[in-house]
């Protein structure tokens, strides 16, 4: 079906200040001891001890063209930032890695051991000795340009965004028109967000319904905003994390996990920038890498949240927001993405297995929006049905939280702006197939999730909508009508929900009930293809062929490549006596889709009639 709305509020944000080697003053004691070799300590040299640490952990960002504000590739590079490096590593500000170490390992973990940090401190205290050149490992080689090689297709943002020299952080969304003329499978999207020193993080969302375009003041300019809601089909390739942060390598989906890209699909790049001190035009590009291996395993993004609990009084230092969801099916967790804004402090996700065993899925003890990331597990985490996934996020709305956007603090509730808060936990899970081919575990999971969200908040628009779409998919039309009606009650003017309610009423033969909703959908969004198409059908079913004609004409104008719209336009023309026009559009439908039965049958009928009753 053409409707479905999943709120991927977008994974937003952040990659912090480009990174590295900046420093704050060392504690006085360290200052005193600087450059006095500790007698008992072994001598630490750059070539033998420091270079391997720096090359592996720092250089991936700190080399020309990357996010690090200066290179860390040679002895001279490292020496000229030596005390900074000692300071930021000691405080674990660098390399940026938020999760606490735990039982479950993440891929590409960027965390120095205590020993490595101590070695760096000793090296600086001992006077930054270079050491024997024969000890120096080979300098790492980095690919310049596209990390995955030349992309099959490159798309560039139509217009640059101008980041101002000063002020606070900026959030901008670029809408890319995808250049495919048929559905293709993607194994990777490489995001080149522009000058990497400015971008904290970037995220691609697949937008099949032009949700992003509708927010642009003029085509191609993009639009502001920290969080996004993208409409999608019920099960969608959105269930992939397409995330960029400084130093991250583009992720290539394994075989069978490719994501589908259709024509007329947009890719929306949600970005977070920090001013650099000078004006910077930013014009990102995306590299698309296709594969001929279609997606056969379809993950789902589970979203835990509890926005209704988010109502944080000013001054509150330890405000808890929790959510608990029990998996109805066996599933593997592939990746996790916790998200809060500037008040978030301690972010914990926990799995309690049916036997009572607990696994920490992720624990971030010192949340920093600037370094948020998607974390992929080194090995998928298998969780049996009956496992409860728990989100425990705490928030600090005191004046002592230096990131608090409100000084003095004020009451903060859930919302999409930087001064609002969020408590979201996304998990990318792969539900296991059940033995019964008639049961789709994804449907079970989505249904359980929608019901869970409604339990948290009976006024959850998206949950009613998604539940309705699932009922509709299973052919339970009256249940679908009830849930879509709830969605429309909550947002009476929402075009998507009105269209969906109209469509499902129409499918159940309740034409009179459908028409007002379809009209409402078009009032809100006059260029809504689905609503024109559905209203055309509703009017035709009532015998109002002239009315139907208008809407099919609008539909064909909006989607000139839609064979069904052409065929229906042909039918409406035939009914209103324009046989020549009807033939033309049936022929056009068959040109687009030679297998379009409606067009073929109607055209044959028309030909038979014209033999019997020559004009």
């Amino acid at each position, binding site marked *: 079906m053409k409707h479905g709305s999943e709120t991927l509020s977008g994974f937003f944000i952040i990659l*912090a*200040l*480009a*990174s*590295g*080697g*900046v*420093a*704050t*003053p060392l504690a006085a004691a360290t200052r005193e001891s600087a450059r006095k070799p500790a007698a008992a300590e072994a001598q630490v040299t750059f070539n033998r001890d420091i270079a391997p640490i720096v090359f592996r952990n720092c250089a991936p960002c700190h080399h020309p063209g990357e996010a690090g*504000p*200066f290179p860390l590739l040679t002895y001279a590079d490292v*020496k*000229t*930032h*030596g*005390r*900074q490096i000692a*300071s*930021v590593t000691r*405080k674990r*500000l*660098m390399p*940026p890695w938020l999760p606490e170490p735990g039982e479950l390992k993440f891929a590409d973990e960027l965390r120095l051991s205590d020993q490595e940090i101590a070695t760096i401190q000793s090296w600086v205290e001992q006077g930054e000795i270079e050491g024997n050149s024969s000890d120096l490992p080979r300098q790492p080689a980095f690919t310049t340009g596209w990390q995955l090689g030349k992309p099959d297709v490159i798309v560039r943002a139509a217009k640059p965004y101008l980041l101002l*020299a*000063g002020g*606070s*952080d900026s959030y901008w969304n670029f809408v890319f028109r995808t250049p495919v003329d048929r559905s293709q499978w993607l194994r990777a999207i490489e995001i080149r967000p522009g000058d990497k*020193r400015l971008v904290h993080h970037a995220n691609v969302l697949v937008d099949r319904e032009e949700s992003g375009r509708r927010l642009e003041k003029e085509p191609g300019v993009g639009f502001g905003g920290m969080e996004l809601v993208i409409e999608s089909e019920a099960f969608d390739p959105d269930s992939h994390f397409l995330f960029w942060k400084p130093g991250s390598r583009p992720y290539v989906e394994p075989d069978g996990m490719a994501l589908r890209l259709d024509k007329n699909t947009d890719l929306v790049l949600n970005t977070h920038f*920090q*001013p*650099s*001190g*000078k*004006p910077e035009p930013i014009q990102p590009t995306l590299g698309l890498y296709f594969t001929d291996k279609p997606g056969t395993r379809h993950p789902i993004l589970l979203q835990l949240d509890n926005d209704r609990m988010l109502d944080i009084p000013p001054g509150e230092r330890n405000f808890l927001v929790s959510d608990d969801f029990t998996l109805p099916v066996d599933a593997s967790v592939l990746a996790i993405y916790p998200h809060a804004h*500037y008040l978030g402090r301690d972010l914990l996700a926990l799995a309690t297995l049916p036997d009572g065993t607990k696994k920490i899925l992720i624990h971030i003890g010192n949340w*920093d929006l*600037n*370094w948020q990331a998607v974390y992929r597990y080194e090995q998928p985490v298998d969780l049996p049905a009956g496992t409860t996934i728990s989100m425990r996020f705490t928030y600090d709305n005191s004046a002592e939280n*230096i*990131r*608090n*956007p409100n*000084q003095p603090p004020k009451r903060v509730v859930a919302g999409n702006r*930087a001064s609002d808060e969020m408590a979201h936990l996304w998990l990318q899970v792969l539900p296991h197939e059940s033995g019964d081919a008639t049961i789709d575990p994804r449907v079970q999971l989505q249904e359980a999730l929608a019901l869970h969200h409604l339990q948290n908040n009976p006024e959850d628009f998206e949950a009613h909508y998604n539940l309705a779409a699932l009922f509709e998919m299973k052919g339970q039309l009256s249940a679908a009508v009830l849930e879509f009606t709830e969605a429309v009650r909550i947002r009476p003017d929402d075009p998507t929900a009105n269209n969906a309610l109209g469509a499902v009423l129409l499918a159940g033969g309740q034409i009179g009930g459908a028409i007002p909703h379809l009209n409402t959908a078009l009032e809100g969004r006059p260029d809504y293809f689905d609503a024109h198409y559905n209203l055309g059908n509703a009017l035709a079913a009532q015998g109002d062929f002239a009315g139907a004609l208008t809407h099919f004409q609008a539909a064909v104008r909006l989607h000139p490549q839609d064979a069904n719209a052409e065929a229906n336009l042909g039918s409406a023309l035939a009914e209103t006596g324009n046989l020549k026009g009807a033939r033309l559009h049936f022929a056009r439908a068959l040109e687009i889709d030679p297998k379009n039965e409606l067009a073929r049958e109607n055209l044959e009928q028309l030909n038979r009639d014209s033999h019997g009753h020559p004009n």
Partner: protein
Amino acid sequence: MGRRWHTIPVIRLLLVVIVAAGFAWFASTLGARNTAFDLAGNPVDPLKSGGRKIVVLVFVRTDCPVANRYAPTIQKLSEEHAAKAAFWLVYPSKAESAEVIRKHEREYGYRIPALRDPQHVLVKESQVEITPEVAVFSSGRRLVYHGRIDNLYQDVGRTRSVATTHELEDAISAALGGKRLEADATHGVGCYISDLE
């Protein structure tokens, strides 16, 4: 507190003039000791140049992201106080050439005169340790304040959405009004100048 008079540097500066004169035939930047230089390579003592204005030295480094992020703030403050305060950008890195500094000034929209301080003469006199830190001198080379510009940064990568204290502006007001500051020295957040030695 304490360090109110800097008689010794004055004597050293006298020596400098002699030494510099002696080596004036070749690159003055190589020859001159105990001085900062303008971008043409001439020795300059910004603390003598103020006349009746107070002098603000702003220590920066072209590759320090924290210092760079302050560029609009620094430029704006220099314009607001132009009538009474002479601002100088001071680049303490030996490695940053006049050409690199000119490019940096252009890119970041600076219209403040720049000095190179490869021998850290001004760094020492100003008692600064970090870029970006500032030093405010009233007439008579009296160091009124040295340290951070404001409290935007708590640490590297840890910033407020806006600064809530404005130490440089307070120091300028204090110097102009002949008042003493509660805190005449703070620590900046940014890049260590000693790493440049």
